[in-house]
């Protein structure tokens, strides 16, 4: 393989013009296309009103999370969330815990109490050696059991990815039914305000690459615990 030439900004510009010109040239050579009809309705089939909000929606989210091998509990208030977190920590017995910069996550962890070393705004390297990561999520999607993490709103890109256990707190008021509704909220922002990294998380990490046999927990967390706050039917 010959050594490729070094490129400068002129080469970049030339390539850009060339590719666009090729595209235009080939489009011009094609017969005029018939106008495609675009419908802009929502994607999902019409949902009954009851599922648009409220306890039924949260319950649907919980079922969907459990359906993809995640764990999900719905609690009434922050105090109950603290108890839920304590249970998770008792189960996993972490030596080191990473927590995001969300005030709720820090408050809940502190109240839960733990002997583990707590790693706050750590560098990436140390986050590789953490046992549990605690974050919040900005939205939850009920139809798929998905958490939506806005990387500009909270520092949780690595805390939700590197530790083998991820604990996510989400408010019942932030549960939406469809992927579309979350995308719509993101799209409503001004371009300069659009988050630089939004991550959709549906269950723990997994693969079926070996003989199509499911294995949970590959490069991302193998255990996902979701705690929904404020959605308990008791109110």
């Amino acid at each position: 393989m010959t050594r490729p030439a070094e490129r400068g900004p002129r080469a970049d510009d030339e390539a850009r013009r060339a590719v666009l010109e090729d595209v235009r040239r080939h489009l011009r050579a094609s017969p005029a296309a018939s106008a495609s009809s675009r419908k802009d309705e929502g994607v999902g089939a019409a949902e009954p009103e009851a599922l648009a909000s409220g306890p039924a929606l949260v319950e649907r989210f919980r079922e969907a999370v459990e359906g993809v091998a995640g764990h999900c509990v719905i609690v009434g208030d922050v105090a109950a969330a603290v108890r839920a977190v304590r249970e998770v920590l008792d189960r996993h017995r972490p030596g080191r815990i990473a927590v995001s910069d969300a005030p709720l996550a820090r408050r809940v962890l502190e109240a839960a109490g733990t002997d583990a070393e707590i790693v706050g705004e750590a560098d990436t390297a140390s986050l590789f050696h953490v046992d549990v990561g605690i974050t919040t999520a900005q939205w939850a999607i009920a139809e798929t059991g998905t958490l939506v993490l806005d990387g500009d709103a909270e520092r949780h890109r690595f805390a939700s990815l590197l530790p083998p256990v991820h604990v996510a707190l989400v408010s019942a008021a932030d549960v939406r039914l469809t992927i579309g509704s979350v995308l719509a909220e993101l799209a409503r922002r001004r371009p300069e305000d659009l988050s630089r990294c939004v991550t959709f998380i549906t269950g723990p990490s997994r693969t079926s690459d070996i003989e199509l046999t499911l294995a949970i927990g590959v490069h991302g967390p193998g255990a996902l615990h979701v705690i929904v706050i404020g959605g308990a039917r008791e109110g």
Partner: protein
Amino acid sequence: MSAGTPAAAGGSLREAAVHALGDAQLGAALRTLATVIGGRRRSAIEDVGNWEELRERARAIKDETLAHLDTYLEAFGANAERAGARVHWARDAHEACAIVLDLLRARGAARVVKSKSMATEEIHLNAALEAEGIHPVESDLGEWIVQLAGEAPSHIVVPAIHKSRGEIGALFSARLGIPLTDDVADLTRTARRVLREQFAAAEAGISGVNFGVAETGTILVLENEGNARLTTSVPRMHVALMGIEKVVPRLADLEVFLTLLPRSGTGQRLTAYQSLITGTKRRARDEGPEEVHVVLLDNGRSRLLRDPLTRQALACIRCGACLNACPVYRQIGGHAYGAVYPGPIGAVLTPQLSGLTTGVELPFASSLCAACRDVCPVKIDIPALLLRLRAEVVEGTPAGTAGQRGPARAARMERLAFRAFAWVARGRRRYEWAGRLARVGQRAFVRGGRIGAVSGLLGRVVPPLGAWTAERDLRPLAPRAFRDLWREGTVPEDTPRAGARR
């Protein structure tokens, strides 16, 4: 492709297929693929009430985008750069590799991790990097397995489907020095442990792109393992390779594709992770790479825009459903195709992207059953494309016959055969005499009322006859033609009537 297979040695599709058919373990793996993934896909679709409508909508979005591809690409580029990414444009594979190499060198990045990207396979990026002393480590489990084995992926979505757990265990033991095991959980844990070190030390991450959003300059990367999230967030530099056909107009358009793609590809409602990356981080202390580069790749795609029929191949969202449904792929697997993209979509893309210089046999390896068209989430009419490509190859466009002995000779023989048939069929007397000759001539081959193997000269001169009768018997022509009986006014007693039982 597997070292030592006919396809790897540049052999023909037929040789590769015969080799694959003799591989019992491959056969078992492909049967599992067809039944398991097929079943998962069907269940996943059931929970969508308006699947057909979604396919229409997805195809409409793709058609609209492709019809104005230049506009959408420009918008994508401008918006991505406004958010801090650098967008590069590559006319072909060579240029794309050069761009990536320059970026790595400028950064001084020698340790590179990759997440799954068929586009990087297409441009042979790994080989280009290796030639310059950079060893990129594949992080997707299936891709890493085939990389360790020195093979090419055999499926778009499940790259190592052709390998049994025993083979993978032996591979890990030999290459990584771990105790021999075929336990899937153990093997996965090993992969996690070994690759984690690679992620931590990586100076650059190279990924593909599933969709690029023109309106915002966002790239979307879908996965299940978490390796793409790691590849695109841990290293200081992220390079994303994106085919120009991957752009969609609006963020909202992602919904329909996120509904169709995971269900079609793996039978999931959603894969475990989707990363929507727009530009670079706002502040130095934020998490994520310092530099994000998107390399837009043409490499033969723009030429397909000329014709609405060929243009639809660019709608492909790389779900792999057509591979899983294809009776040919199910028998021979991905390596036999000898191309980066196997299966039905590969049979269409490979010859087209290469300008009919590669893979010209592939469009012929199909019974046109249209199972692929039925499962395609964006309704690509693959059979129509196969027929078009066959015509182009047979008509012997200069590019198509260059250096290809097999298809060119076959094309000449076929043309001769059809010309001969046309001559015979155009004259009634000629046609009748041909029938009489055949009735006499066939007697040499008829045994016990059937024509068995037609070997020897006749089988070679008329290859379909030889090939057919190697596996199946033929019924001989009746001793007397119906038209003769009709002329005489007699129809034999024992002629079966319609509906009569024997």
